[in-house]
């Protein structure tokens, strides 16, 4: 067991898979010579050479399409977006190509590729660079969307994503790259589509994914001081969602709060709340609550940014509501 940074866990995952399968290669802005915009691909150009670690121009649509083409030809590209905000430029490639080719070709082509990059807000990056894109991409059928929060989850899920024959949107966070966690030494994979109970509890289920996990865990500690034991369910993958884990947990606690870093309207929080009340209505003691970003573009100002994001206070308030405390 080693303690690794999230970025190191990703690095290991990519290196191991590239050693294991020569078809796997990495491309994106600054991934090679610059050692990665966030140093995720540190040392990889040296290790694997120019043919397998490719610096691209600032042309997301172009290199996303390039990746799709490579995948069509049987390669296994890892396409890095510096952040998922910039995937907007490549949206047509994802919406109309990567999620559709397998279906429209009647299965003649699979696209074994990974799009990865940092997602959501960081610190004072402003409206255009703080967007959480997970809800948008999870809306599209035809690919997998996963958002690991810990180094352990990141390595296991990235390896699984690279080996999966479907296109996978792998969403990290600039804020998480430096966080540390235990990662086993040997080979391991984490199945895509499986949630994980990060903290067991009995009074309420808090459903979360991605970096909001840490805010939720802090809120859970605060709640424990008030005598409320929260069960924290980390979805890890948001498409496909581990519905059974959600239903099992909420049936146990009878109350659910979804914490989503992102805009509320038609977001994943809404989807989860709907699933719960549709399927296990009779287990509910209270309506399902969501704690999301405020429905605004992200402010640049430090304090306003904090105010927009889901914080411990708002999560605690929501839990108190559903537990009538």
């Amino acid at each position, binding site marked *: 067991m080693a303690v690794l940074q999230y970025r190191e866990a990703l690095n290991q995952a990519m290196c191991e898979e590239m050693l294991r399968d020569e078809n796997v290669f990495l491309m994106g802005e600054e991934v090679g010579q610059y050692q990665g915009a966030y140093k995720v691909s540190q040392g990889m150009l040296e290790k694997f050479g120019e043919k397998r670690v490719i610096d691209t121009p600032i042309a997301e649509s172009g290199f996303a399409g390039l990746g799709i083409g490579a995948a069509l030809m049987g390669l296994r590209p890892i396409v890095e977006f510096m952040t998922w905000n910039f995937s907007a430029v490549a949206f047509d490639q994802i919406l109309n190509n990567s999620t559709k080719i397998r279906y429209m070709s009647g299965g003649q082509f699979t696209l074994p590729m990974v799009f990865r990059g940092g997602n959501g807000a960081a610190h004072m990056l402003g409206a255009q660079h703080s967007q959480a894109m997970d809800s948008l991409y999870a809306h599209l059928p035809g690919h997998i969307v996963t958002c690991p929060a810990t180094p352990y989850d990141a390595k296991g899920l990235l390896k699984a994503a690279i080996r999966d024959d479907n296109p996978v949107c792998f969403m990290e966070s600039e804020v998480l790259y430096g966080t540390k966690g235990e990662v086993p030494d040997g080979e391991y994979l984490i199945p895509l589509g499986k949630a994980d109970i990060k903290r067991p509890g009995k009074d309420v289920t808090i459903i979360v994914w991605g970096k909001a996990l840490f805010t939720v865990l802090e809120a859970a500690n605060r709640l424990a001081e008030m005598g409320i034991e929260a069960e924290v369910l980390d979805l890890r993958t948001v498409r496909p969602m581990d519905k059974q884990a959600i239903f099992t947990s909420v049936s146990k606690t009878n109350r659910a709060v979804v914490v989503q870093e992102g805009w509320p309207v038609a977001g994943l929080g809404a989807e989860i709340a709907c699933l719960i009340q549709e399927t296990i209505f*009779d287990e509910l*003691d*209270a309506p399902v609550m969501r704690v999301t970003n405020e429905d605004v573009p992200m402010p640049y100002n430090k304090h306003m940014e904090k105010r927009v994001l889901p914080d411990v206070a708002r999560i605690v308030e929501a839990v108190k509501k559903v537990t009538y405390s």
Partner: protein
Amino acid sequence: MAHFAQMPKLTDTMEEGVIVKWMVKVGDTVSPGQQIAEVETDKAVMPMEAFDAGTVLQLIAQEGKPVPLGGPIYVLGAPGEKLPEGSPAPAATAAPQPAAASASPAQSAEPKAEKPDAKTEPPAVAPGISAKRLLVSPIAGRMAADAGIDLYTVTGSGPAGRIIKRDIEAAIQKKDAKAPAVSKASTLKDLTMMRKTVAKRLSKAWSEIPHFFLEREVDATAMRQLQKTLKEELPDAHISLNDILIKCSAYALTKVPDCNVSWTEAGIEQHEAVHVSVAVALEDGLITPVVRNADGKTVMAIAQEVRALAQKAKERRLQPEEYSGGTFSISNLGMFGIDKFTAIINPPEAMILAVGKVEPKPVVVDGQVVVRDRLCLTLSCDHRVVDGALGAKFLAELTQAIEHPLRMLVV
């Protein structure tokens, strides 16, 4: 959207108001600030204005009838709009209703589970307007149904009085606390073979044999003395009163052989040998091992045999030939403190002797009151084969044997 307008607080001390006069009728359009009624408050008659613009769809408050603060007084909306839920039947004094304003039925009294939506405010139903509507969370509703709890007896602690899980948990605890801590329910024990057999045989005996009972109190002093003597002289023999009684009964049967019979449809079966069945109490029933040819056995032999058979009976090792074939039964409950009792005949036998306890009692002997050991015997007889006189004759012989045991040596 059609909505209720509520009785406003026109003075700071007002708790209810009375519409003195409506200044509008159904179908009129009103604009904010327009006076629509005169309201009598606790202080004075004051004008009431409309707060919104719209068409008056229904006048709810009747002139002269008090309405509490916040109570609905009229409905405002767009022309022809459906009245909101909770609208009562149209007030009798209101202006003619347009055809579209058919009264919504009064709120049903059934408890309705509230849909889990984002709003937690209560629906806009004023107090006193409709029958009580229950707000119950889905899980609370289910728990209450499972536990048999009437939701109308539960106070909801959630918003707007919503009954929630913890309210039902509390109600269940209260219910359990009231119920006795230990539920005295009956349990069912499986029938053992013995119990089944006893039940079957004795039910048959009781229903088929016409029983009658002869009681006789005998003097047991001599018998007691005999037992004492035997105890001193033959301590290892452990001869009991019952062993002596068995001997006496066997003797009496030889003297009155007409009692040593069995009823059969074909005829009365006369037994030549005297086999005495001795009732032995077991943990889960009783069994009657047989002392064969008891008339020819010494009391000591009888004592030994009865002890051995009883032990075998308790160990469930009695063979069928050891507990069948008796011609007469004796059952002794004296050691359990019973004064006297009636026993049920053991078919195919004709009689059974029920023996109580030996007790010192005052009796008259030669005109004097003296204390003697007395024993009550009750003889059950099968009236098909033994009549009263015959049974009495047997008891007489038995009494003689008990009261003068040495006679058995001679006669």
